[in-house]
């Protein structure tokens, strides 16, 4: 059962109910319940193999769930694919571009495939980044290719943006640029974004919600600020009074075993302790999910 209090507030732009997906014997998603409020930017964080990509692929109707289902802006993508996909902008894990086609060709293709595609909007975004429209897409840098993918997703003017680890192969400058463009677009369009990543620091500044996925289960789903405020990190032998232990892992430097605690409401003594970083929160929940109590930082 996921912890968190913000999931039920507001209209859900994306919701999963008891979603399960299995690949032969491997369980990728195990009865996932998730609700992403409209207008939020949610970080979907988890280690490799946690099920982040599978969750997004189910939302894109690339995978059929074994049980449960998802709704994108109220539409089940598996039952009403075209209707659901009209509401989604998607940025795949690796920036896939058509070799031999120019940037402009990509926009033309997007326009021919998606009736509501706003080429001018996408073109303006690429212009702002100084990406030449006549350049062949396979000669773009990794960051430029990612920006092209984002521009194509934004050009759909979709209500929901699903970004599957788009920052994984980018250098720090390109990451920052990418996130900035994304945030500007979300702010101006009022859309909802789900940004998956296995690197917490990538999404810390960009997102206002956090969903932690570990071993196919949602470990935490709450606003980012709430995640920071309600968790504390201490050494294993000094628990805040009334707090619930989440998970223990090897602290920075590899010397001490640290434990993440979730504070009880109104725990004044616990609140006096220094708040846990977002990375610590994620590590604590992932360590709990693995059940070993130990997690290398």
């Amino acid at each position, binding site marked *: 059962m996921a912890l968190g209090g913000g999931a039920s507030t507001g209209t859900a732009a994306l919701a999963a109910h008891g979603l399960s997906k299995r690949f032969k014997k491997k369980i990728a998603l195990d009865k996932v319940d998730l609700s992403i409020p409209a207008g939020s930017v949610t970080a979907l964080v988890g280690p490799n193999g946690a099920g982040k990509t599978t969750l997004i692929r189910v939302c894109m109707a690339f995978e059929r769930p074994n049980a449960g289902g998802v709704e994108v802006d109220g539409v089940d993508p598996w039952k009403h694919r075209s209707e659901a*996909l009209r509401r989604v902008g*998607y940025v795949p894990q690796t920036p896939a571009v*058509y070799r*031999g*086609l120019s940037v402009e060709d990509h926009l033309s*293709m997007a326009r021919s*495939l*998606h009736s509501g595609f706003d080429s001018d909007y996408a073109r303006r975004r690429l212009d702002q980044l100084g990406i030449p429209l006549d350049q062949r897409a396979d000669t773009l840098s990794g960051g430029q290719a990612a920006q092209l*993918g984002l521009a194509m997703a934004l050009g759909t003017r979709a209500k929901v943006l699903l970004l599957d680890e788009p920052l994984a192969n980018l250098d720090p400058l390109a990451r920052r640029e990418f996130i900035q463009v994304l945030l500007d677009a979300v702010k101006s369009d009022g859309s909802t974004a789900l940004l998956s990543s296995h690197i917490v620091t990538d999404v810390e500044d960009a997102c206002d919600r956090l969903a932690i996925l570990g071993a196919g289960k949602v470990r935490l789903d709450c606003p980012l600020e709430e995640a920071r405020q309600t968790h504390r990190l201490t050494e294993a032998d000094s628990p805040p009074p009334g707090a619930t232990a989440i998970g223990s892992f090897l602290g920075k430097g590899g010397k001490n075993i640290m434990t993440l605690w979730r504070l009880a409401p109104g725990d004044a003594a616990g609140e006096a302790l220094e708040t846990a970083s977002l990375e610590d929160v994620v590590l604590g929940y992932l360590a709990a999910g693995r059940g070993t109590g130990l997690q290398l930082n």
Partner: protein
Amino acid sequence: MLTRIRLTLKQHRFETIAVTVVCVGLTVAALIEAYRLNSLNVPLSCLQSYQGGYMGPSQGPVTAAQAHCNELAKSFNDMRGSLDMNLVQLLLLFAPILAGIVVGAPLVAREIEQGTAPLSWALSGSRRRWLLGKVLAGVFLLAPLMLVVGLAANVLEGALNPGLNPYASFSNYLGRGVPDVFWALAAFAGTFALGTVLGRTMPAVVLALVVCFFVRATWDAGMTHFVLRQFAVQQVQQDQQQQQGYVVYGPGGPGNADMYVYYKSFIDGKEVTDAEVNAWYNQNMVCVPMLTPSASTSPGDSGSSGASSSPGAPATPDKQGSTMGDNGVACQGPNIDPSHMPQPVQYVIPGSWYWQTIALESGLLLLGSLFCGAIAFVWVDRRRPY
């Protein structure tokens, strides 16, 4: 849709350029070879009297005109049998299938291999519409190119068989003309269906090569056995030589116009089996190996598809009661009235039915293409884009 077609061709520019260059090159080569043959200006009579060096039944002294005639016919036959001519004919035969495979294999498979399918499928609500755009690009590329190649092959066929109307003859009819378009489309549809199912380009190519060549190799036999048999009619005795006991081979022979489908044998007006015919010969004839005209290999019989002079055709008795088999064995029976000998009757599709037959076989190929296409359209809607 036009944008998608343009971008699909641009995306597959290597295949587009390669197929275009090969088809144009092959067309030019076929026309050049046809021009070379036509420029010899060999009279039809020379070709008919010159069958692989055998000068026909006349045993008189060779005149200067006959020698010249022989020389021309020999040049013509040498050119027909030359390496470049055979190469062009071979390429013309397989070009439609190869072009279809080259264009069809990467159509969907490469998108899946290179990871671009999720990009397109996320943008397009309907994967079938997406696939339709790509398929139309392939059709628009292949159809005109193959029509041009097929027409050039018709010109070459006409040059190879002077006096033969390529549009009223079944000589090599599946390797030229309109069928080329439908062979290419069938190979294209089969291959992109395989690419869609397998999601890999090279396995699709290999499997398509095996399947297409198997279908091509068995098509003639399958068509004559299962489809054309019911339309075949008794062949009209139309050739003087045939009546004299010679199976007609070579350029200009009217035997090439009809498509041999099957034959029946009759003895005294009663239909008999092959075994009964053999029994009759064993009982009534004495067969000895002989060097005969019919034993020589015909230069004109270049693998024509189901022509009436096909190897399956039976030996024909002459008026003297002798008959010659394909293996150079002549049989002689003592004083038997030829009218009481086994009479083989050939059933053929007449050359005048060329267009109807082409329409039928092209229609069947189109049906096969649509079936393969339907598999791809169903599959693309269900498969993962990776």
